[in-house]
Structure formats: structure tokens, C-alpha cells
């Protein structure tokens, strides 16, 4: 396994010129140990070799055991092919299929109508689908652009404060992590009780029986929803930012202290630039997460709107799940639209980050 001659070609059927090269260098070589030149010779292959064959250590031996690696990867690759790659392609295809029936697997040719229908541009069977353009898309974007910046800002504030204290830091850290270890549906129901018209918020602020949840105006209902989403988004962000803060080199702060730099300047010129990789990571992941908001709405409202049968609080994902059975092609089209939006946003963020992130 461990050959002492690591680079030389050794083959019993070498042509004359190569053999003379060996004999010049090592003298006559025999199989086994050659004590004169201190070289081990071993037959690696009796096949005619036309490319240079290198005899090396363990890792090179493995290279010939390619199949073994694929065997280890087989379970993952099979499962991924069935539950990831195939569905991905299939969903894109379904989104172009006309009158697709998932039970029978039948469809009448390909069309762009599904996208048109979802976006309210084409009329199908005399009806126009307005719920996506009216509710799902705007709601999704509002939730994304309100909750992501606010939660990152609050998380940044809390983690900077946490990083500056000496006592009880661990305890605070654990408390701020608690919302992560919960059931989204369960705590959504708790928020629903707090914001109930007979609930605590109305009592504290003396609002009588103002409606936040059931029977509320669409825009009012967004407030508890956003608060809940931000509340549940904080722990992960604080954890990431705090570990980022603890990794910043103390030298920068010492230098700033000597120059008696004001605190806010230390924050904006040292801390935030040094945290930019973490902030970028959080931006990308939480944008993707916020575009897929669904469970929090189910937890808080239990339905797609503030009143029974309304769709005021639809998000794209909610629409997908609601229509999966009845309008499979529409759901697929909405999923493709969501995928495209996420791709574009991730791409833009990575592009913008090139000039703003310091690694």
C-alpha cells in the first residue's frame, strides 16, 4: 500500500526507452525489494498503460473505488431524485398544463394560461381569479418588507446590548432564545387571545372592544400578524448576531477607545461593518422565510381571513396549499411565481452585498 517509489512508472511490459531510463537511474530492478538502490518494486498492473500511471498513497487507491462513494450516496441520491428533483421539474411542467387532473394524470396540452389566470389576466370558465393579485401577492410583500427589516433591527439592538453586559448575559441569552422553542400554531393562538376584542391589549390601551383578529379590517389584522412574526423571528437572529459580535477582534475597539471615538460611531463604523456577513446571511434567509409565511396566519387566525370565508390574509403559500387539490395547475403556477420571486431577491441581495459586505 505504501510504496517508496512514488513517482516512477513501473510496468513489466514497458518499452525499451523507459526501461533504459530506469536502469540508468536505479540499475536493474527486480520484483520485490532491491537493496542496492533501496527501491521496492511491486506489480501494480499487467495491463498495457498508455497514460502515466502514478503510484501513491491511500487516497489514490481510493480514487479507483469511485463506486464505493456512490454507494454511500445512493440513499440520499435516490430520495432526492424522487422527492426533490422530480417534483421540481414536475411542478414546472404542471404549471404549464391545461386542465391537469392529478388523479388520472391527464391534461390537454401546454399553455401559459395558468400563469395568466393566477395573476388575474385571463378568464377561465367565465371567472377571473383575483385573490392572488388582490390579496396573496400584496400581503406577502407587505409582510416581507415590514417584518424582515424591523426584526433584524431589533435583533441587532438586543444583541449589541447583550454583548455589552457582564452579568446575567447567559440568562438573558436563554430568555431571548425561548420563542424559537415553541410550536408556531400554539403561540399563534396565544397571540390571538392577547389581541382578542376582550383581550389584554384592548384592556391596557383602553380600546373597548376594538377588533384586531376576528372581524378586523385587513390592514388592522396585519398589525398583530407582523408583531407575531417579528416576535418569533427574533431568537434565531439574536443567536447569529451575538455569535458574530463575539467573534469581532477586540483590537478594533481598543483602537477606537484610544481615539475616544463616540459610541454611535463605533457602532456604525466598526460593529455593523464587521457584522455584515452575518447580516447578509440573515437577510437572505429571512427574506426567503418571510416569502413563505403561512403557519403564523393559521395559528393566529385559523383561516385565510379575518371573517369566515374571506381571503383577506392570503399569502402566496396559503394560496398554493388551498388550491393544491382543486386547481393543481394554478397552485403549481403560483409556486413557480414564488420560486422566481425568491430567486430574483436572493440574486439581488447577493449582488448588492458584493460592495457592502466585508469578509
Amino acid at each position, binding site marked *: 500500500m505504501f510504496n517508496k517509489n512514488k513517482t516512477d512508472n513501473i510496468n513489466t511490459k514497458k518499452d525499451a526507452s523507459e526501461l533504459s531510463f530506469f536502469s540508468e537511474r536505479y540499475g536493474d530492478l527486480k520484483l520485490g525489494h532491491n537493496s542496492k538502490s533501496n527501491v521496492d518494486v511491486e506489480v501494480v498492473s499487467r495491463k498495457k498503460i498508455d497514460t502515466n500511471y502514478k503510484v501513491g498513497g*491511500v*487516497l489514490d487507491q*481510493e*480514487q479507483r473505488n469511485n463506486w464505493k462513494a456512490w454507494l*454511500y*450516496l445512493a*440513499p*440520499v441520491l435516490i*430520495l432526492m431524485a424522487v*422527492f*426533490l428533483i*422530480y*417534483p*421540481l421539474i*414536475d*411542478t414546472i411542467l404542471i404549471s404549464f398544463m391545461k386542465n391537469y387532473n*392529478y*388523479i388520472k394524470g391527464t391534461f390537454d396540452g401546454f399553455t401559459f394560461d395558468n400563469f395568466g389566470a393566477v395573476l388575474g389576466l385571463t378568464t377561465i370558465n367565465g371567472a377571473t381569479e383575483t385573490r392572488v393579485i388582490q390579496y396573496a401577492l400584496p400581503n406577502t410583500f407587505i409582510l416581507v418588507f415590514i417584518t424582515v427589516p424591523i426584526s433584524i433591527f431589533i435583533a441587532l439592538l*438586543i444583541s449589541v446590548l447583550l454583548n455589552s*453586559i457582564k452579568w446575567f448575559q447567559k440568562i*438573558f441569552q436563554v*430568555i431571548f432564545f*425561548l420563542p*424559537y*422553542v*415553541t*410550536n*408556531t*400554531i*400554539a*403561540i399563534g*393562538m*396565544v397571540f390571538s*387571545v*392577547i389581541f*382578542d376584542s*376582550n*383581550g*389584554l391589549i384592548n*384592556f391596557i390601551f383602553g380600546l373597548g372592544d376594538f377588533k384586531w383578529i376576528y372581524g378586523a379590517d385587513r390592514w388592522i389584522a396585519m398589525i398583530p400578524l407582523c408583531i407575531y412574526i417579528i*416576535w418569533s423571528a*427574533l431568537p*434565531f437572529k439574536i*443567536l*447569529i448576531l451575538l455569535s458574530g459580535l463575539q467573534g469581532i477582534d477586540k483590537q478594533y475597539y481598543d483602537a477606537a477607545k*484610544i481615539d475616544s471615538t463616540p459610541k454611535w460611531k463605533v457602532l456604525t463604523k466598526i460593529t455593523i461593518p464587521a457584522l455584515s456577513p452575518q447580516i447578509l446571511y440573515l437577510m437572505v434567509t429571512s427574506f*426567503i422565510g418571510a416569502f*413563505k409565511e403561512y*403557519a403564523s396566519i393559521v395559528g393566529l387566525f*385559523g383561516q385565510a381571513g379575518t371573517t369566515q370565508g374571506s381571503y383577506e390574509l392570503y399569502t402566496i*403559500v396559503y394560496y*398554493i*396549499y388551498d388550491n*393544491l387539490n382543486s386547481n*393543481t395547475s394554478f397552485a*403549481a403556477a403560483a*409556486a413557480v411565481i*414564488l*420560486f422566481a420571486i*425568491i430567486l430574483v431577491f436572493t440574486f439581488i441581495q447577493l449582488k448588492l452585498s458584493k460592495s457592502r459586505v466585508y469578509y
Partner: protein
Amino acid sequence: MKDIIATKKYIDFGEENTLENNIILSIKEGNKSVDVIRKSDKIRKIVSMVIVYILLTFMALLVVFPFYWMLITALKNNNEILSSTQTFFPSIVMWSNFVYVFQVFDFLTYMTNTIVVAVFSTIGTLITTIFASFAFARLNFKGREALFAVFLMTMMIPGEMMVISNYITVASFGWVGENATRLDAYLAMIIPFWVSVFYIYLLRQNFKQIPNELYLASKVDGKSDWNFLWKVMVPLAAPTLISITILKFMGTWNSYVWPNLVTTKNEFRLISNGLRGSSFVDAESGRIEYGYQMAATVIVTVPLFLLFIFFRKYIMRGVGRAGIKG
């Protein structure tokens, strides 16, 4: 420069000329002695610390408050919950709420379902993850880096892209529908989640840290790759594997959408579905019985909290490197 000259005469040159004393040179207030400046600095520091602690405590209270409210609402009777003056502690502690919920809410069935699904999907995930990470971290094969890059890219695809076709696939296996048995329902909830690219990434990083020398040594001893994987790598990566197990368990406890889609009968569903699906509505007034509802949420939340208390370190480390629920 000007400021420094102005303060210079107040500096006690009797002291040693240390760095600490030099720093005072930059102080701008010209007519204060060193002691006064030091004292005011100290006071300012203490005051700002107090403010920081007050702010943090305030925010921590906001974070914890929903849990507190859940608990006390679960112990109130409905009249107190709906009364115009809210109380911060139940006037009569209603333990009977929990008794009622245990009778009505089929907690045990949902709990059993959730644990079965969690255990088997975790075992499956661990096996596939260990194999794949081993191949990526230790074995050489053509196209390794390219394949790994493709794996990482798939993390960007939203799960909703796959849900539709996966539903159709699972249905075509006969796991969904009116005739689906309990086993079918379990299979539908377990098998599609046996692969997690994220965990493969996490474990591969961990495997890569295991030094090459250990591998070479085991090779010299004539150990096979298989033996090396189970006898050396897996024990060394145990903390990561525990993190993965717990996060996966929490993910199952939280999963709502997929179980809701693929199961037709209530008794096959998981805890989140049971919670949102059961209505604690008073038959006479049509009002939601919040006391019962909150008692149910307490029952659902407590196991997660217990898990957190015992495995805090693993959870926080796993999430810190990860971030994806489930």
C-alpha cells in the same frame, strides 16, 4: 491639540507616566481635575449600564410575556377571561381546565403519532446524512465538489415547489386517501423527509475536522471504511448528531402543513393539527372557550420546553450553525 494643551496642567505628573494616564490627555473639559473626571466617567458608566439592563429586562419581559399569558389564561375560568377588567393572576385557579382538555383533546393519540413520526424520520435522516456526509468528507470520487455545490443550491428552492408533486407521488403510492391505513399515513409523513441537505452540510463540516491521521492509522490497522465510519467518525461527531436529532424532533412537533395535507382522518394527525383542528367552542353561546384552548397549548408547549431545558446547549449550537426549523 488645543484641548490637550488646556488640560495638561491638571495632570498629576507625580503619577507614573502609564498608558492609562496618557489617555486622559484627550479629555476636553479644561477646568476639571483628574479625580473629578474619573469619578464622572465612572458614574456615566454605571448609569449607562443600568439603562442597558433596564432595556434588556424590558425586552426580555416582552419576549416571555406570551408564555406567561398562556399559562395564566389556561388557569382562568371563561368569565374571568372575557370580563372587561383583565387580571394578571387568576382569581380562582382552574386546574379543571386541564382535566377537561385531557378528556376532550385526544392528546395521547396525537402525541403517539408525533413521536412515532419524529423517531422514524429522525432515524432515516441520520442514516442518510451520515452516509452522504462521509462520502463528501472522506471519500474521493469524480465530481465530488460539483455534486456538493448542486446539493447546496437545492437549499434555495422553496419547499412549496415540491409539495404539489410530492403530494401526487405519495398519493400514487396509495398512502393518501380514504383507504389509507395508519401505517400509510405514517409513511407519507416520514419518508419524504428523510433527506436534509442542510444536515448533510452540517455533518460534513464536522467530519472534515477529524484529522486525516486517524483515517490513515485505521487503514494501517486494516480497518475498512465502514468500520472507521461507525467506530471513529460517528462517535466523534456525536454532538452534531444530537443537535440534528433534537432539531428534527422539534421540526416534527411543529409540522403542520404536510400532515394536514396527507392525512384524511383526525386520528392519524400530528399535535399541531390536533391543536388547531380541535375547537373548544361553547355549544350554547358559540364563543371560543379560551381557557380550554390555552390549556391545550400549554400541554403542547411544555414538552418542547422540557427538551430545551435538557438539551439547551445542543439546540442553540445546532441552530447557531443552522437556522432552519425542522
